[in-house]
């Protein structure tokens, strides 16, 4: 039971869990038909807000678990975080898209498609999170992949098409491997649970996991880890991620980093719990720790050679997903707690950075780092927002990521000092690259054009304020809640 749970004084017209699925789905249909883009952008924001509010109700009122949908302490974290970032990103998207339309990079016809796809993506991600059936979860992740592929290629430039193609091919291969893993889990479960629907229901699986064939489960986890790990963006399966982030519209970069990577990670965590419940199966930890650590160090080195600002922050996302996977791979109450906190903070910070970067790229008319200089002078609000975001993502105090990274590093030092040293090395390398590029971009003589943009600063600073607040003080109920989730993860 969540510590936040209490009885609502009134009846809801719709079950909240139905609402988080139905609102995006219906809006997607409406937006696909709506010809007025300014209305569509507002409707997109309204739908995302309604979904977020419905997700908040999930905190207070848990629906009864069925064979298809269920809510527990773990996925409610992801749903609330996801719908919140989805809402703020839709607000950012409204102003971003307006500019793209003005300069003619997008036409109203494409915008209709874009908005419908945005809500489809929200639907797919929520479905992946709340579904109780590992088959449906797989279908939802595949759907989320396809919608983002379509959006990454929306500019139809050479680069955008190549990025979308690469993302599509690598994402499909990943998702195919994940399906093979899912089938293997079913095969492992069948003798213990019986044939049919039950052997794919996650709550049934976890209750009976001890009786599964451990060898099959081991092989299944390797496939699931590689498959969903591709979508998490872990090295060496990350190749799609920088291109998809750099070439698509910036709101999509924000959703990719802030949400989609988390959803894939959620799938990995679910199967990790399944393996942990079977005493004879391999421990999933070392595999996750290795992939996480490799991603951190690899991405930290790669950061130094990036010339494109969105690509640069995409590599930073690989680094942070590596840290989170590492933390969950280490396991234990403290590391899991830190991993959850880090995931939340990274989602908020990285999407804030992309909000700033999106408007900066519009103002400068380029994404090349070398052509962006002196932002704090030429565009102080955006420039300082970026500075704050980068300071946060680099893990400097007093912001939220400092705290989560500190917890991960200290808990690792106590258990495996050598791993901790490698991790710290990666973090410091990344810090160096971030500070180097930040000083070039944010300070010095402003150069280049400075086009007017209708920037929306509210989503950017709202996220940064939350990250700052979390770094200074974490409210008691939130800590208790995350602790209970950390226990659940084992």
């Amino acid at each position, binding site marked *: 039971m969540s510590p936040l749970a209490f009885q609502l004084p009134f009846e809801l017209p719709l079950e909240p869990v139905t609402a988080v699925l139905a609102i995006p789905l219906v809006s997607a249909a409406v937006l696909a038909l709506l010809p007025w883009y300014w209305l569509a952008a507002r409707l997109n924001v309204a739908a995302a807000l309604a979904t977020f509010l419905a997700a908040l109700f999930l905190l207070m009122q848990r629906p009864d678990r069925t064979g298809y949908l269920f809510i527990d302490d773990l996925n409610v974290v992801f749903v609330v975080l996801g719908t919140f970032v989805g809402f703020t990103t839709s607000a950012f998207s409204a102003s971003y898209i307006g500019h793209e339309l003005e300069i003619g990079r997008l036409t109203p016809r494409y915008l209709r498609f874009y908005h419908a796809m945005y809500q489809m993506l929200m639907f797919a991600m929520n479905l992946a999170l709340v579904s109780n059936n590992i088959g449906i979860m797989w279908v939802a992740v595949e759907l989320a992949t396809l919608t983002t*592929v379509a959006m990454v290629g929306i500019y139809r430039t050479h680069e955008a*098409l190549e990025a979308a193609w690469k993302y599509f091919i690598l994402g499909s291969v990943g998702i195919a491997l994940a399906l093979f893993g899912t089938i293997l889990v079913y095969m492992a479960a069948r003798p213990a649970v019986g044939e049919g629907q039950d052997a794919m229901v996650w709550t049934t699986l976890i209750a009976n996991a001890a009786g599964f*064939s451990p060898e099959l489960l*081991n092989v299944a986890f390797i496939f699931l880890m590689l498959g969903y790990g591709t979508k998490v963006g872990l090295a060496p399966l990350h190749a799609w991620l920088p291109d998809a982030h750099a070439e698509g519209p910036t709101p999509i970069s924000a959703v990719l980093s802030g949400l989609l990577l988390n959803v894939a990670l959620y799938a990995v965590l679910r199967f990790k719990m399944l393996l942990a419940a079977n005493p004879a199966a391999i421990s999933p930890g070392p595999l996750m720790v290795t992939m996480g650590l490799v991603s951190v160090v690899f991405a930290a080195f790669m950061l130094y050679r990036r010339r494109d600002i969105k690509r640069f922050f995409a590599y930073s996302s690989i680094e942070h997903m590596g840290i989170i996977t590492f933390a969950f791979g280490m396991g234990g109450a403290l590391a899991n707690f830190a991993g959850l906190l880090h995931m939340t903070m990274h989602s908020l910070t990285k999407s804030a950075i992309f909000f700033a970067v999106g408007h900066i790229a519009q103002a400068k008319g380029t994404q090349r780092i070398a052509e962006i200089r002196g932002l704090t002078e030429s565009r102080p609000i955006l420039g300082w927002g970026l500075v704050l975001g980068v300071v946060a993502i680099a893990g400097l105090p007093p912001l939220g990521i400092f705290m989560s990274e500190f917890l991960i590093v200290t808990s690792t030092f106590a258990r495996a000092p050598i791993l901790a040293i490698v991790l710290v090395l990666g973090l410091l390398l990344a810090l160096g690259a971030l500070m180097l590029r930040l000083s070039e971009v944010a300070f010095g003589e402003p150069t280049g054009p400075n086009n007017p943009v209708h920037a929306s600063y509210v989503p950017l600073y709202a996220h940064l304020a939350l990250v700052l607040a979390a770094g200074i003080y974490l409210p008691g109920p939130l800590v208790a809640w995350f602790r209970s989730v950390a226990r659940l993860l084992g």
Partner: protein
Amino acid sequence: MSAQNFDIAHMLAGGLVLVSFLLLYQDRMFALLNVFALHAVVLSASVAWQAYVQDARHLYVPAAIALVLKAIVIPVALRRVVIRLGIHRTIENVAGIGPTMLAGMGLVGLSMVVMLKATSPSVDPLAREDLAFALSVVLLGLLMMVSRRNAVSQIVGFMSLENGLILAASGAKGMPLVVEISIAFSILVAFIVIGVFLFRIRERFDSVDLQALDEFRGERR
């Protein structure tokens, strides 16, 4: 299950692996599409046989989908794409037939070792060997995707990989229908997406050779 039923299932699944090998070295577009159609026919027969053996009527649906969609509709559509793009005369450089085939054999050996080790002999032997075959087809599909540069061949590689997944799903006794239909459906969706892509790629580039696309890597700007 009678020995005969088992042998036929075995033969069909093995046949799918064999056709995957055929796919690996096709260097002409039309030949590639024809072999892929054969791949889909063998898959369809294999799934239909599973449906008969397991007495699971719902499995006839994926079998029919494989036959109609993958053996007829998609190859015909891709043929048109190939003609419209004007690449039907080009011979694709398959990176060394010998090494590719050797790598393919290695992958089949690997999947046999992994799957037969992972499944204890107490598991239904048909399901067990089906899984090993299915994994071989999946890995051969992957190999094809990495060894080809042409977008159409990559699509064919991807679809042969999906065929392997359907083989695995049909071998898993009693696996819910939801998943199977969704697999077939996702292939359709995937195809639409790919179709859009090809159209756009054709519109923007003169070739669907992905090497041409590599020129536009963001890093080199």
